[in-house]
């Protein structure tokens, strides 16, 4: 049974604090950023729903509920990214994000089911205690890989990183929440939470370390050469996620502690930086560094906000990011190469942050004038700055700040220095950077196009568009299957049941036959449709006579509506222009009669062979007492088989969307 039990420990609570706290600040920022009331009405409900589902991801104990919340975050992020549905870039970004994270979600479902197969439970807590059983099983590596893919897609590790820069088409409040503090961190959450399961599975650690480090270094270097402010921040976020994955992969105690510290620090300063970029976009109406410059004259307060955020973002003492960087460096100080790679990555990330915060205000040829931003919109980034600065002292970690002049401190200071150098000589550095224009999104997009082309040609092959051909295929296939499994002994015998007189039945059958003949013979489509309706009504009367009143009523109503439908479709057609050739006609008659007789025989046999059905007694006994209903048919529909009905009505909803789409295409074609 699916339960909504929650599993809370310090790791979950950290996330809860981030989701709620940063959510509040983003909400304040959104009030300042979104002036249009209709934009606010669209944003806030989706935003709050997203926060709820994110809470679900980090607190649910039942793995299926976790999966549902995971998928909900993907779906809601799709809606938030495509906030402006008219913009094709927004649609493209949202689609890529949804496809990639959705594919990862499927892998996670697969892994969850495999896990449950081994341990017999869906509960996360219980699974964490059955570690030995899981690790001994031959499936352990497959489960590890599947969970890795789920987290890697969500947290934008290489090669799944390209959706994150593409999602920057979202309005800034969305980016500052989803793509810095919460949704992308879900993968990191998963990695940390599941690490105890895979301690003895080296593949897990290797995947995390390998892809994490690769993502970190590549994205950090890539971020520096971006032109778009939010693009720079997107790539530094990708790098940070890679860093955290790498640390979790080392499976060392000190690395895990460092991850928690960096998680908090990064969420705080990255959210602030995104909001800062959003303010610049809001005031100057552009996000491109090549178009921005000289803002310090007209917006001095904004300049100071930029400097403040750069201070805490680069991790200068005593900001929380400094503490985090120290812990990270200390946790890998055995390995020389890892230290070097971290140093390179930190330098580039720091330089990228400097570009975002300082470049728009530097001296340049562009003479831009912007208005100083209002109070409401700058409140949130300033608060984030203050928290980043004071958190170390408030959380009682002051003594962790200073360990004396050691290797980590030197590296930290050096990386800040190198970052400043990179920033000052930005243009020269960028020219020497390889793969600075590589865009994974383009490859994905062309891959999608190729896929659609192939499916289109397959569809053209299989679907000719002729209704007659479809029906022929269906009838022939059904007949072939039925004949293949024809029972050996003869189970048909004539047995008359029913209280109605034989005369009435014969009369009704005669009416039906007349209607069929009339339908085939008539020249006018309307007459054919009406006789088709007459056939349906006679069938309904049969249902009523033989004790199926619900069925009869439904048949009457559906037949009426179908006749209406047909009439509207055909009313502009005055006569049938093309009739089938005699050969086609003969074939159709033979096939229809054959299929009809076959169907009749099969139904007859099904009624005759009673079989051991306990269902009838079960329904008869429990329908009134347990389900409070005397009409067993209806009770089966809404109670016993309620899930089936729920699926069916959902299908009706999807069909309605199909109708809308088809009619819109028609309108487009007519124009």
């Amino acid at each position: 049974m699916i339960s909504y039990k929650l599993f809370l420990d310090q790791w979950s609570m950290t996330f809860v604090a981030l989701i709620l706290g940063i959510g509040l600040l983003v909400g304040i920022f959104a009030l300042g950023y979104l002036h249009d009331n209709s934009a606010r009405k669209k944003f806030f409900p989706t935003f709050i729903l997203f926060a709820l589902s994110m809470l679900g991801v980090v607190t649910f104990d039942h793995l299926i509920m976790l999966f549902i919340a995971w998928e909900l975050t993907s779906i809601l992020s799709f809606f938030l990214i495509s906030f402006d549905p008219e913009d094709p870039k927004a649609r493209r970004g949202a689609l890529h994000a949804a496809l990639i994270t959705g594919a990862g979600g499927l892998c996670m479902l697969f892994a969850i089911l495999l896990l449950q197969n081994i341990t017999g439970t869906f509960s996360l807590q219980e699974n964490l205690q059955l570690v030995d059983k899981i690790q001994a099983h031959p499936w352990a590596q497959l489960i590890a890989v599947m969970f890795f893919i789920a987290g890697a897609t969500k947290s934008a590790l290489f090669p799944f990183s390209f959706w994150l820069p593409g999602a920057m088409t979202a309005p800034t409040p969305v980016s500052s929440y989803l793509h810095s503090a919460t949704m992308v961190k879900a993968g990191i959450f998963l990695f940390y939470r599941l690490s105890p399961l895979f301690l003895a599975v080296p593949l897990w650690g290797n995947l995390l370390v390998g892809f994490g480090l690769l993502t970190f270094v590549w994205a950090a270097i890539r971020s520096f050469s971006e032109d778009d402010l939010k693009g720079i921040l997107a790539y530094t976020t990708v790098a940070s996620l890679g860093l955290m994955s790498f640390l979790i992969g080392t499976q060392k105690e000190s690395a895990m502690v460092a991850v928690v510290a960096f998680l908090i620090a990064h969420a705080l300063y990255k959210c602030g930086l995104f909001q800062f970029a959003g303010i610049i976009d809001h005031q100057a109406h552009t996000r491109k560094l090549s178009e921005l410059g000289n803002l310090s004259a007209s917006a001095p307060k904004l300049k100071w906000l930029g400097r403040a955020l750069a201070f805490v973002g680069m991790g200068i003492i005593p900001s929380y990011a400094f503490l985090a960087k120290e812990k990270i460096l200390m946790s890998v100080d055995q390995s020389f190469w890892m230290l070097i790679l971290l140093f390179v990555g930190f330098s580039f990330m720091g330089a990228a942050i400097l570009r975002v915060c300082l470049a728009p205000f530097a001296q340049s040829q562009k003479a831009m004038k912007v208005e100083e931003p209002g109070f409401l919109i700058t409140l949130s980034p300033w608060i984030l700055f203050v928290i980043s600065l004071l958190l170390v002292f408030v959380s009682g970690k002051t003594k962790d700040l200073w360990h004396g002049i050691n290797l980590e401190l030197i590296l930290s200071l050096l990386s800040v220095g190198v970052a400043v150098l990179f920033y000052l000589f930005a243009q020269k550095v960028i020219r020497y950077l390889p793969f600075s224009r590589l865009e994974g999104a383009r490859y994905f997009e062309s891959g999608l196009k190729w896929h659609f082309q192939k499916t289109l040609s397959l569809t053209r092959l299989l679907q000719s568009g002729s209704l007659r051909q479809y029906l022929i295929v269906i009838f022939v296939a059904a007949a072939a299957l039925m004949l293949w499994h024809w029972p050996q002994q003869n189970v048909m015998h004539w047995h008359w049941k029913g209280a109605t007189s034989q005369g009435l039945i014969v009369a009704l059958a005669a009416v039906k036959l007349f209607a069929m003949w009339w339908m085939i013979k008539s020249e006018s489509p309307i007459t054919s449709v009406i006789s088709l309706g007459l056939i349906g009504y006679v069938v309904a009367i049969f249902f009523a006579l033989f004790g199926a009143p619900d069925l009869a009523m439904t048949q009457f109503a559906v037949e009426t509506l179908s006749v209406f439908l047909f009439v509207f479709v055909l009313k502009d057609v005055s006569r049938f222009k093309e009739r089938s050739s005699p050969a086609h006609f003969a074939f159709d008659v033979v096939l229809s009669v054959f299929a009809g007789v076959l169907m009749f025989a099969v139904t007859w046999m099904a009624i005759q062979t009673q079989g051991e059905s306990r269902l009838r007694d079960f329904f008869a006994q429990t329908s009134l007492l347990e389900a409070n209903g005397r009409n067993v048919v209806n009770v089966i529909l809404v109670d016993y088989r309620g899930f089936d009905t729920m699926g069916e009505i959902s299908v009706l909803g999807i069909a309605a969307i199909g109708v809308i789409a088809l009619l819109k295409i028609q309108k487009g074609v007519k124009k």
Partner: protein
Amino acid sequence: MNPSLILKAATKFLFPIIIIVSLFIFWRGHNLPGGGFIGGLIAGCGFVLYALAFGVTEARKRAYVQPTTYMGWGLVCAVGSGFFGWFLGQTDFMAGIWGEVPLIGKIGTPVLFDLGVYLLVLGFAMHLLFSLLEESAS
């Protein structure tokens, strides 16, 4: 299509009766033949009759909200009825929870579910037929 005066006069009289009949058939579904599907279809027939007599724009006004809104609310009712058992009754999702209400008698979550089915089928029938009527008119 120029609807006749007889049709218009008759529809003015028949339309509310059809809707009431559909609601009645929906309500009695649990103990006697009827139910959400049939009720929704009959109400759909009623709206189609109204559209035939007075035109689609008038019929849409009569419906107050868009057909797709009916469908949305139908789904909300249907899926929402499952949550009662889950959160309040501490049983499975979609288990029936019943209670006594004065004057009406027994009422429970399957009734809410059936209401959802009713709204959805009604919305679908309206949506389909209004779209087709508008298509054939233009």
